[in-house]
């Protein structure tokens, strides 16, 4: 019995920490209908500022908390002013993408400043445990609970009794009407970003102290947990976010109690998917709330695609095809092979996110499914590698579509959240399903690529193989876009209600798009498995999903040629400029930010 009480206390404490993140997300979503993916980065910044304060400046605890809150709030204000305010009149997807870019930049800056190695963050509190009932509780637990309650109280007083708080509530309910009462919406945005950042930063500090360790991977985890809690409580609902957080903390804690630590996140994401499917407005959303999602046609930047003459495409393809015959280094070929593999993933994502408008943030999961399928088929069942790669495509198409199907009934930002969660679930299932996937050990000794019994080992042959596969996929996708089916996809993206009124079954078309896209991504993952010869559950991670999204936006959403050009550019340019590996993610983040700001339609335009 006593341990159950401990798990309950632990769940509530962790829930309190999540609540500090989720409340900020809810405030921001309420006011600007934006899911702030940079919230976890502020939490990370808060944790590291706390480390500097505690370990280097030796500040007393109250001062540490104030220092973290103030500095984080300033970071939040800077993000609002320079990252998001310029996008106010932009397409609806722009601010979401901007927060993703900002989170990349912030995380990398922290990593470059402090190195990726974990650091210890001492709690400054005496390490004693008090017995209560059958469980124990320590001073840090009480501190976290105290900070959580105090923040909730302050927030309540602010929203209920201050003029700015009224403005926040009014803006959340009707932005235009609030402006017509004289509310300066920019100030409201500033206020919520400042508050959200202060709470998020303090949350990072407390978590660091709770686990006595901080590292740069905390950021994405915090964003994910915060988003889960917020959506469970009902997006934009502040009290709902608190309850959602406590619920999430308890579910995780009990899940860990029964199944073990590696299942913690699996429960979080299953809870999210369950809520999204059963009650997409959250457990506590008011029924009256209008769906805050995109007004038609405004989600993706409309533009005329750049027309590239057929001969130019043919010439470019021919040039790349004969490249290995020229005296180029293996290094160049290796780089381009990576570009072709990324190109296949980008083809897949540009179809799903661009053509039919389902902005997936979990696309790396399709790579992982393909990679594991191909690896296991060739290793366990001795299937020839060529066939195994095709099997990988089919498996990703089938399984990927099946897994993503719960998100079909969602729209806009919710699709991104759901796909992100589903991607994480895939990675966690791979980690935990040891009998099939070999769990955390991963799969090694994957045979090299081969075709009709000939092993493809030389860079030249691998180059031709991957280039050829990508070109075939691109041609197929080009045909698809020009067909009636392609037009239906675009109709669903531009106005799903009108498309439905014309008799298009949304689920069926979304499934078709994911089947096609899943195949391309699965093939890419399958080929990658045979090239790497070793894969594990972290080989294909969220960073790759975001990289693919950056490629797709760079090329122009829905644009087939653009996806390939974007891949070559994002893989190639860092090589050309010899940018060190640790700066690359930073560069990708900056590229994404600049694109969203100055050329949301991408290089070649959306199609």
């Amino acid at each position: 019995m006593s341990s159950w009480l401990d798990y309950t206390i632990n769940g509530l404490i962790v829930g309190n920490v999540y609540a500090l993140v989720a409340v900020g997300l809810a405030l921001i979503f309420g006011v600007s209908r934006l899911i702030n993916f940079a919230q976890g980065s502020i939490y990370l910044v808060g944790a590291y500022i706390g480390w500097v304060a505690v370990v280097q400046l030796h500040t007393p605890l109250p001062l540490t908390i104030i220092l973290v809150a103030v500095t984080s709030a300033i970071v939040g204000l800077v993000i609002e002013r320079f990252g998001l305010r310029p996008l106010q009149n932009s397409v609806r997807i722009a601010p979401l993408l901007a927060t993703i870019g900002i989170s990349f930049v912030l995380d990398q800056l922290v990593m470059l400043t402090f190195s990726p190695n974990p650091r210890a963050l001492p709690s400054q509190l005496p390490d004693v445990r008090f017995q209560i009932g059958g469980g124990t509780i320590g001073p840090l637990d009480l501190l976290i609970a105290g900070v959580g309650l105090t923040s909730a109280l302050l927030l309540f007083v602010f929203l209920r009794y201050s003029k700015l708080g009224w403005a926040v509530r009014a803006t959340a309910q009707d932005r235009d009407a609030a402006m017509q009462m004289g509310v300066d919406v920019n100030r409201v945005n500033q206020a919520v970003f400042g508050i959200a950042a202060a709470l998020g930063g303090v949350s990072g500090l407390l978590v660091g102290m709770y686990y006595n360790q901080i590292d740069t991977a905390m950021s994405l985890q915090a964003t994910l947990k915060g988003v889960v809690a917020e959506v469970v409580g009902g997006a934009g609902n502040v009290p709902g976010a608190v309850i959602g957080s406590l619920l999430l903390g308890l579910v995780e804690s009990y899940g860990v109690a029964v199944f073990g630590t590696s299942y913690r996140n699996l429960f979080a994401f299953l809870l999210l998917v369950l809520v999204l499917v059963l009650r997409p407005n959250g457990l506590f959303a008011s029924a009256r709330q209008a769906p805050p999602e995109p007004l038609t046609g405004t989600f993706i930047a409309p533009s005329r695609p750049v027309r590239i003459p057929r001969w130019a495409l043919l010439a470019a393809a021919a040039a790349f095809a004969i490249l290995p015959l020229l005296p180029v280094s293996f290094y160049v070929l290796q780089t381009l092979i990576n570009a072709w593999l990324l190109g296949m993933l980008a083809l897949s994502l540009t179809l799903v996110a661009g053509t039919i408008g389902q902005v997936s943030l979990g696309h790396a999961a399709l790579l992982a499914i393909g990679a594991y399928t191909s690896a296991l088929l060739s290793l366990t069942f001795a299937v020839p590698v060529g066939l195994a790669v095709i099997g990988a495509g089919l498996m990703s198409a089938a399984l990927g579509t099946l897994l993503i199907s719960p998100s079909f009934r969602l729209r806009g930002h919710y699709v991104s959240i759901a796909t992100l969660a589903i991607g994480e679930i895939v990675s966690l299932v791979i980690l935990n399903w040891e009998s099939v996937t070999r769990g955390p050990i991963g799969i090694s000794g994957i045979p090299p690529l081969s075709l009709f019994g000939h092993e493809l080992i030389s860079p030249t042959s691998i180059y031709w193989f991957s280039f050829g596969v990508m070109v075939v996929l691109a041609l197929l996708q080009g045909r698809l876009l020009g067909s009636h089916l392609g037009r239906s996809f675009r109709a669903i993206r531009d106005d799903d209600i009108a498309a439905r009124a014309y008799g298009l079954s949304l689920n069926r078309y979304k499934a078709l798009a994911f089947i096609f896209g899943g195949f391309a991504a699965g093939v890419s993952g399958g080929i990658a498995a045979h090239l790497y010869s070793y894969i594990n559950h972290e080989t294909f991670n969220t960073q790759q999903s975001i990289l693919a999204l950056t490629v797709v936006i760079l090329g122009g959403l829905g644009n087939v040629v653009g996806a390939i050009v974007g891949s070559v550019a994002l893989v190639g340019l860092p090589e050309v400029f010899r940018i060190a590996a640790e700066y690359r993610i930073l560069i990708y983040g900056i590229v994404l930010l600049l694109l969203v700001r100055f050329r949301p339609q991408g290089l070649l335009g959306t199609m």
Partner: protein
Amino acid sequence: MTTSAAEPLLALSGVNTFYGQAQVHFDLSITVGRGHIVCLLGGNASGKSTTMKIILGLVKPRSGDVTFDGASLLGLTTPQIVRRGIASVPEARRLFADMSVRENILMGAFVRNDRDGIAQDLDKMLGLFPKLGQRLSQRAGSLSGGEQQMVAMARALMSRPGMIVMDEPTMGLSPLYVDRVLELIRTINQEGVSVFMVEQNASLALEIAHEAYVLQTGRIVLSGPARVLKDDPRIRDAYLGGSEAA
């Protein structure tokens, strides 16, 4: 009150507005005299609501000028325009549904900082809209359409505006409330607040207005004193969109 036709309170002059490629207003000129009720009539898609948005700074015209009390409103943000003394009763009320009635009315005084004056005005509103007295702590979203209209009007008055712009104040109300709303508009006006209202219901609007304009696909096709227009057969034609007649 200074009444001089030469110096209108609000003037739109030569306004051309576009949504993307589509032109919404063609050389639109409208004036609202001090202390007057002016209504803008027109059918669907005639550009009425866009005219409201131009005045409130929610949409910017491509050319032309909008002046209030002699100063141009172009380049001002909506909150700045509200501070100049223009309050609004938006289309379909647009109350803050999850806030209480009291909070909604007080939101109207957002631009003011005189606590005592605000409290006095709140009492005054309860005198003007006695029904709201019992509803003060209720969620605004739970009121009936007519009651919501009362809240929206009280909310607009709380900023002590020189002018109120109203977008279809009688839309969707029961006949009983339509009369009540029109009467209230008259009362508000008699207290010195100028009113600019957009309406589809021509005959009702002309009952209380001093002047009226008829807008048809972005152009003013008819204007003049309401008394005169009320009997003008072209009102009917223009209103129904009969372009041959106009």
